[in-house]
């Protein structure tokens, strides 16, 4: 058996109730339970969080930076999705 540093888990921490979990880094761990414990010790030693998610790093798929332009381009030609696209006469309220 080759030496193992254990698989990598990406760590997401929720800092306060009501806000999203945010990616903070990763840890090495043999299983999910150990990953959560390690994440607590590594990323929340100073009350930085109230909840932790861990995800096996190899389960994450990501968009590719090279295609950034063309990938996100479709949203650029639809300015009518933004409220500022519409001209509302002055004097009309609550719109």
């Amino acid at each position, binding site marked *: 058996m080759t*030496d193992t*540093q*254990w698989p990598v888990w990406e760590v997401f921490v929720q800092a306060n109730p009501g806000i999203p979990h945010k990616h903070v880094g*990763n840890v090495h761990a*043999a*299983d999910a339970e150990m990953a959560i414990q390690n994440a607590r010790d590594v990323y929340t*030693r100073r009350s930085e969080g109230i909840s932790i998610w861990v995800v096996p790093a190899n389960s994450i798929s*990501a968009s590719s930076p090279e295609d950034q332009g063309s990938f996100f381009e479709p949203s650029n030609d639809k300015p009518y999705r933004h409220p500022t696209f519409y001209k509302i006469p002055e004097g009309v309220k609550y719109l």
Partner: protein
Amino acid sequence: MNFIGIMEDEKKLAAFEAKIASGQKIEPKDWMPEAYRKQLIRMMSQHAHSEIVGMLPEGNWITRAPNLRRKAILLAKVQDEAGHGLYLYSATETLGIDRTELLDQLHTGKAKYSSIFNYPTLTWADIGAIGWLVDGAAIMNQTALARGSYGPYSRAMVRICKEESFHNRQGYEIMMHLAQGTPEQKAMAQDALNRWWWPSIMMLGPSDDQSPNSDQLMRWKVKMESNDAIRQRFIDRTVPQADFIGLSIPDKDLKFNEQTGHYEHGPINWEEFFEVIKGNGPCNAKRLKARNDADKKGRWVRDAAMAYAEKKKAKAA
């Protein structure tokens, strides 16, 4: 590579440099020149190794801390150093190298770590001197690196700097208490300062004339400031702190230059620095052995945890 390939790379390089010049960070999946990746792996892994090797001289005093308060603080500090090592190994792994390989480089002596951790911690006052001087010098370096261009490294630095300021203050507090104590305690603090001062200003790296900063590394924001500039700032900030607690910096040539607003220091013994880097410092062999032993003795734990996790997974399936 054919002509078109070279043209392509030049275009990518120009885009990469423009991105850095505009203050944007480079992220792991972004295109980067091989030289940038290599230099970062070297710097970041040296940094990670320094954090975990740095646990050894301090760990030496955990069982002998003078009281429970000091012991709890030192334990928390050493745990932080382990955490810093982990953030930095994680950040280094985003460059496409794994931790097993990084640790192998440390254990075989192929990778370096900070020269400072090859000095022994002879008395309790050394723990004060390390927090005050060594962590103080590290903060100077790390606040500069936090502005660097590689996203994961820069973010790790921001986090580490926040934690280091506790280390810095607890060290100064130890020194302050000793300096205000009995004559023997004050002498112990002075002795620690005498032994740690020069290694601390050396750990910021060779002087600029011996280590020409490549324009490229500066332009790529891998290196943010020259070693001498960082060293000067550290000295300017630290000397008044020593004065305040009545300890004297062991440099007879040290004087304040009213015109420049900076302290001028005496000659640094670079021969000693390069000897320590080469492996001939007082504790190099001891540190490397401690790391190798920990790795070997910990192997069965890593294997057993993995086997147990796999068994549990198989049972659940």
